[in-house]
């Protein structure tokens, strides 16, 4: 019997464990064996991808809860100009300035430059998305963040 599990550390507050079990009912067992036997890597990639999506969603929810805006929607098109950068709290300014320099980057790439943890940068980037300063775009497993300069007229 094959048991697969992945642990994803979301941030210092949250930790989620996801287990993909194979079942002992005959039909499900055959399906899992087929999937895991032929493409085990592909299945793991899928699980990881889904967990990362879950991770991102939870980070957004945590940020919304922190600010008491449970039903808040991302603001639209707030310009990320230097005066806005100046008025930001220090932790967000560092992330926002790094994304200004990079143009378009993942949380991983930002964390390499700021020397802070990827999960921390991911939370700050998602907060900047909620505030309307950044846009987020998924490409496969990766989530790219950028300031949308072109669509702002």
């Amino acid at each position, binding site marked *: 019997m094959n048991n697969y599990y992945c642990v994803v550390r979301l941030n210092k507050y949250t930790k989620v464990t996801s287990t993909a079990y194979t079942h002992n009912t005959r039909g499900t067992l055959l399906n899992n064996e087929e999937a895991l036997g032929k493409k085990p890597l592909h299945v793991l990639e899928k699980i990881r991808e889904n967990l990362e999506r879950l991770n991102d969603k939870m980070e957004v929810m945590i940020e919304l809860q922190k600010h008491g805006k449970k039903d808040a929607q991302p603001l639209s098109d707030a310009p990320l*100009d230097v005066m806005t950068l*100046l008025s930001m709290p220090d932790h967000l300014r560092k992330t926002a300035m790094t994304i200004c320099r990079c143009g378009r980057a993942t949380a991983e790439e930002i964390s390499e430059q700021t020397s802070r943890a990827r999960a921390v940068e991911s939370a700050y980037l998602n907060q900047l998305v909620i505030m309307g300063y950044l846009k987020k775009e998924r490409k496969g497993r990766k989530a790219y963040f950028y300031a949308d300069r072109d669509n702002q007229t």
Partner: protein
Amino acid sequence: MSKIIAVHSYKGGTGKTLLSVNLAATFAQKGKNVCLFDLDFRAPSLFATLKAGDGICYLNDYLNGTCEIDKVLVDFSGQIPGSGKFFVGLANPSTEAIRDMSAKDRKWEMRALSRLLALRNALLNEKGFDYIVFDTSPGLQYSSINAIVTADLVVVATTSDRSDVDGTSRMLRELYNLFEKKSGLVINKVLDAASKAKRDEMYEKAKTIYQVPLLGVVPCFCEVLRAEGSFIFVRDKPDHPFTKILHEMTRKIEANELN
């Protein structure tokens, strides 16, 4: 290493343009390839200092997205002895352009910042320039803060004027520190700067009041005033003490002695 240098000050008339032109010219004299940009869109001055001709694209056009940076750069290499390139990007001095630049909104300023940030790759990496020098507007102007965010090093020009000292120290705390910028202080128009006691006083002032490294102390030179900003001082007066001070400043920047 500091490759992009913004020359800024709290008040006007502290010697930013004089420092910018002569810092850039000194680097060029040392064989470095330099780009000097006039980011003082409210009161453009390099146009007059360098006696540039008409029919060129301005930095305003590049920031507006209507022209590429190659068309903005004017080649002044022939005017500086030495093997380095000396290119200049000018601000449009016409009243209409000044009015236009002062009416830009936040979204435009955000795009202008991204175009300034793009210069690092376009000029330093692709065109092989060694240094970019920004001459800026005094105080908290959008164009100046854009230049500060883009720069690796901010050269802060200040004088001993009481309001300048107060404003500069506040600006260092509340602007450069927030952007985590490396800064170097230049105290300009100092009287009795030849005496060791005065120089020690300036070093102490930089350490206690401003809390940033001192890049240089420039005495009040009548010869500099007499030039009326109409020529490149370090080129025309190679043996003058002002030229030697500028050489020492560029040495400190090259050797990264401002930590």
